[in-house]
């Protein structure tokens, strides 16, 4: 192995990519600790904007939005995980059936359809069937588009579980239900956890679809931030953004660690 350094020009190119990717994030994180009201001039280290997030004039609005985001993400991720597990079981363990290829494409289609199209379509659909847009429509939309994100790690994990484990359980007098609960489910757990976490982050983070189907007066954290930024960027937005980033990193890391631990046991 010669290593990546062997290729001339790779190092500067890599550094350039990293800077483009992460410099804005670093700026936002750094300025969230800014002591001044300016968003460009450094006024010394301070936690005042974090205090402002929780106690300032916008605290109520952001608090409600954060609560909405969190509850929607929890419910959407949970229901998407249940549905994705059922889908993965059918796709991976269900043997051959008619329309399997089409089903697989359908499950994963939302990953490829432009989000704006899904957003418009969701809004038209909700209006057509007479649903009032609000918390409920956001929840339904999130449940739907989270499914493929939960499906991918669950199906991948399931593919790695040999059919002989279930057969061995059945051979040793377990009913179908017992074999599922005592053998397949524990083996599938790391996939379920990372699927759930991924769906949770995707829901928490969603802006475009949410913005279309949320209705008037209903806000999630991303739409609230966007609404606030329209009237000019205040440093408290940077604090909120940094907090969201921290939550995301925490969850993604957890998903990664859980999956890695799961893969160690054969």
């Amino acid at each position, binding site marked *: 192995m010669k290593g990546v350094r062997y290729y001339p020009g790779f190092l500067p190119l890599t550094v350039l990519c990293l800077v483009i990717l992460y410099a804005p994030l670093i700026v936002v994180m750094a300025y969230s600790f800014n002591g001044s009201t300016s968003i460009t001039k450094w006024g010394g280290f301070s936690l005042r904007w974090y205090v402002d997030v929780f106690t300032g004039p916008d605290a109520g609005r952001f608090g409600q939005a954060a609560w909405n985001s969190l509850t929607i993400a929890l419910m959407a991720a949970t229901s998407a995980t249940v549905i994705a597990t059922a889908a993965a079981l059918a796709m991976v363990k269900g043997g051959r059936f008619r329309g399997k290829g089409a089903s697989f494409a359908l499950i994963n289609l939302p990953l490829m359809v432009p989000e704006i199209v899904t957003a418009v379509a969701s809004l038209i659909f909700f209006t057509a069937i007479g649903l009032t847009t609000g918390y409920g429509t956001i929840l339904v939309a999130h449940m739907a588009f989270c499914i493929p994100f939960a499906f991918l790690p669950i199906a991948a994990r399931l593919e790695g579980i040999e059919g002989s484990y279930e057969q061995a359980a059945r051979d040793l*007098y*377990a009913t179908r239900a017992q074999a599922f609960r005592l053998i397949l489910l524990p083996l599938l757990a790391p996939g379920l956890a990372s699927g759930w976490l991924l769906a949770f982050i995707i829901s928490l983070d969603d802006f475009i679809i949410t913005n279309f189907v949320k209705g008037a007066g209903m806000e999630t954290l991303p739409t609230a931030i966007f609404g606030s930024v329209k009237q000019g960027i205040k440093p408290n937005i940077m604090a909120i953004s940094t907090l969201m980033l921290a939550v995301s990193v925490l969850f993604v890391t957890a998903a990664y660690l859980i999956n890695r631990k799961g893969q160690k046991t*054969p």
Partner: protein
Amino acid sequence: MKSKMTTAIDIRDVVKTFGEVTALHGVSLGIADNAFFTLLGPSGCGKTTLLRLIAGFEDVTSGEIRLFGESIARLEPNRRPVNTVFQHYALFPHMSVIDNVAFGLKMQGMDLPARTARAGQMLEMVHLSDYADRLPAQLSGGQQQRVALARALAPAPKVLLLDEPLSALDLKLRQAMRVELKQLQEDTGITFIFVTHDQEEALTMSDRIAVMSAGQVQQVGSAQEIYEAPVNLFVADFIGETNLLQVEVHEVREGRATVTLPGGHRFACPSAPVAPGRHALSIRPERVTITPGADLSATVDRVVYLGSDLQVLVRLADGSPFTIRLQNAARTEVPGPGTRIGLHLEEGAARLLAD
């Protein structure tokens, strides 16, 4: 030994198709109780399918499987009192060794103290008592194999099914396990049905062997019967090493045939019931001796050193290749290449085969 044999498994006209493919073409077999029975055949011959039908992992397309007289062909696997040792063991990776062994007992509703005691006994039997609290991944392949055996035997099944359980082990361990498996079968008195493609494995362990090919049972018999009296070309070729020659058959009477070898040598030998014409003749290489002045003459091509044996590759008068095996004893005289020698066929060396 066994005087009056009870039939443990009775398989009648079992057909299994997967879509367009027929895996088993009407297989019928009787497997005696307290026997070590082997299903032997090349991959794709249907032996594993037959085992899976007995276990209940597949449904028969048609036919009947009886276990001590009771039909089990349409029962769910958890309702059949048979257990399986899987090829790659399929130990539950998230459970300790003792929990693996106790799993079947737990499913049968045995209470915790009783099943812990029984699982402990089973681990003692396979010499793994010290490993009870380990996870399967922390054991070697040979140890995992023993756990799989203990787990399958713990619920005291009426029949134990073994699906090529030795194939993942290295040679030394495999040879040791053969003896141990046979011992275990005799100690427990449980009928073992063992699937393998390794004829040496089959010959060393089995009371009876069913040789399978192309979804059909070709021959059932003891190791000796199958080796010494193969009924057809497939069995003769598959079991052991043999010389197969196309010969002219003049007459078949009372199980003996008069044949002429390609070189013109004419003699009589045991035969399957075939009509006169051209048929395959099997001559076992270790039943041929080099005898000066014998009727059948040959020329030595080369001698291959195999340690305990010597393989002498020769050509018959018409040029067809032929192999002889000699024991590498101190007084064995080894003919050099190019030497003309006479070959003597011992009684039972040659056998005429059905196609």
